[in-house]
């Protein structure tokens, strides 16, 4: 990605595998400061693994991931925790603490990482909840709110410490169209308001293209296409065309690779 803006996150020559199973290979990605960058691709293509590598939850076999100039997997535990203070992450299903109220969930990182007086924490939390439209749900428990609302509470919690980098793992999964639009709008608005950088892992074409500045398409652990949403909409790349148009068959086969149906039914050519 060629950009005049300096990169907050850089991935270079990255390889990652679970045992013998290769997940990511030869990955090179840039995430410029202040931008919303979407990482898209089908299920199991390695999108979430990219987020986990950026967050330092797993270590690559080869290559590097650097955030704010620091190579993530070279940091010790203290260094990694220091770096993570600059990050916020939205997990696929929110990962809210179910024994805490909405208010306490958002207050959690503030109480853990700052010595702010309780009155100030209260004001900050209410402002964050106001930003996601859930100020009046502050007293509710996660079990008492909908999935879409939980996702927004998790967004408020992820941005509680005004992070430089916000990572969203499938923020639109399982949401109704209204909640999806609200969440997408929120991601863009928060990114611009906080001046942060957002990485959006998703397979929802419509919402991602609406808010992202740049998009990476992944398949089988590799980047297969990249560009601005406008570029990709008119792309001739077969994978991009299949994905954007939701075509059932194309470079991504409908059937899981393996023996043919004829082989399984014993109908193959007889000698």
């Amino acid at each position, binding site marked *: 990605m060629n950009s005049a803006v300096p990169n907050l996150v850089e991935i270079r020559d990255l390889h990652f595998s679970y045992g013998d199973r290769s997940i990511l290979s030869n990955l090179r990605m840039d995430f410029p400061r202040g931008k919303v960058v979407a990482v898209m691709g089908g299920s199991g293509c390695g999108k979430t693994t990219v987020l986990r590598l950026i967050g330092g*939850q797993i270590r690559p076999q080869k290559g590097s991931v650097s955030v704010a100039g620091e190579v993530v997997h070279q940091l010790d535990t203290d260094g990694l925790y220091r770096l993570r203070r600059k990050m916020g992450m939205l*997990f696929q*299903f929110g990962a809210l*603490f*179910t024994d805490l109220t909405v208010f306490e969930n958002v207050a959690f990182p503030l109480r853990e*990482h700052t010595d702010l007086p309780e009155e100030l924490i209260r004001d900050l939390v209410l402002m964050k909840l106001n930003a996601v439209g859930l100020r009046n749900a502050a007293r509710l428990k996660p079990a008492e709110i909908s999935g879409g609302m939980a996702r927004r509470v998790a967004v408020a919690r992820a941005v509680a410490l005004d992070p430089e980098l916000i990572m969203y793992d499938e923020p639109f999964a399982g949401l109704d169209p209204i909640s999806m639009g609200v969440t997408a709008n929120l991601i863009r608005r928060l990114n611009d308001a906080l001046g942060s950088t957002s990485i959006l892992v998703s397979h929802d074409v419509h919402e991602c293209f609406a808010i992202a500045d740049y998009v990476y398409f992944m398949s089988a652990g590799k980047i297969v296409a990249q560009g601005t949403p406008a570029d990709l909409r008119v792309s001739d790349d077969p994978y991009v065309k299949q994905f954007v148009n939701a075509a059932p068959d194309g470079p991504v086969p409908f059937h899981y690779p393996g023996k043919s149906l004829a082989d399984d039914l014993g109908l193959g050519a007889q000698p």
Partner: protein
Amino acid sequence: MIANLLSAVGRSVRESIASVGFSARSFFTLLGVTPGALRRPSLISEQIHFIGNYSLVIIVVSGLFVGMVLGLQGYITLTPYGAEQKLGQVVALALVRELGPVVTALLFAGRAGTSLTAQIGLMKAGEQLSAMEMMAINPVQRVLAPRFWAGVIAMPILATIFSAVGVLGGYLVGVQWIGVDEGAFWSQMQANVDVQADVMNGVIKSFVFGIAVTFTALFQGYQAQPTPEDVSRATTRTVVIASLTVWGLDFVLTALMFN
């Protein structure tokens, strides 16, 4: 055939040793974050309240019935020897030395231990522990250590309550129901139960059991795969491993304490 068998045995032994080593390393990791956890005593007291509340009713009811049964059995056994005045001593010694710590630990494993395992396992399955890590908060220090120390502190308290209620149960059956002399019941107990040798050793036992049971419960929850099946298996493992550990430790401690 024999080669396969040997290979399976070897693999099993190797896995068992690795598992023990991993448990030991996890235990020391937990101890390593303890100073950080102790800086926030409110988290520990919150958990003592939670764990204690979970177990209190079952401890009190069980203690009462165990004491009542001891009163009955003790009376039946002592009467042929004309030693029913010793009933208070027998009930108290059985409770403070053995039954109080051991039965409390077993009940604690079944009640609070399973709850801790399920809670940690579900937090893991719901990505709550990962979320905490990504917030630069060490879940071992923030979640596991306060629960560990709460369990370790709660166990001797619960065992003491169990023994005290058990003595009361023995008194109700022995003195109030059967008619053993009340003065003899209490005076024999007072004269023959040593605070250091009997009561304190019982407290030490329950402290050790508290470490074993709470660590087992937390470790099983933390190591569980984030699936409903494995969380439920981890809960079962907690009861089995904790109970067997308590029996084994009880034998070793009894041998050491009472020669």
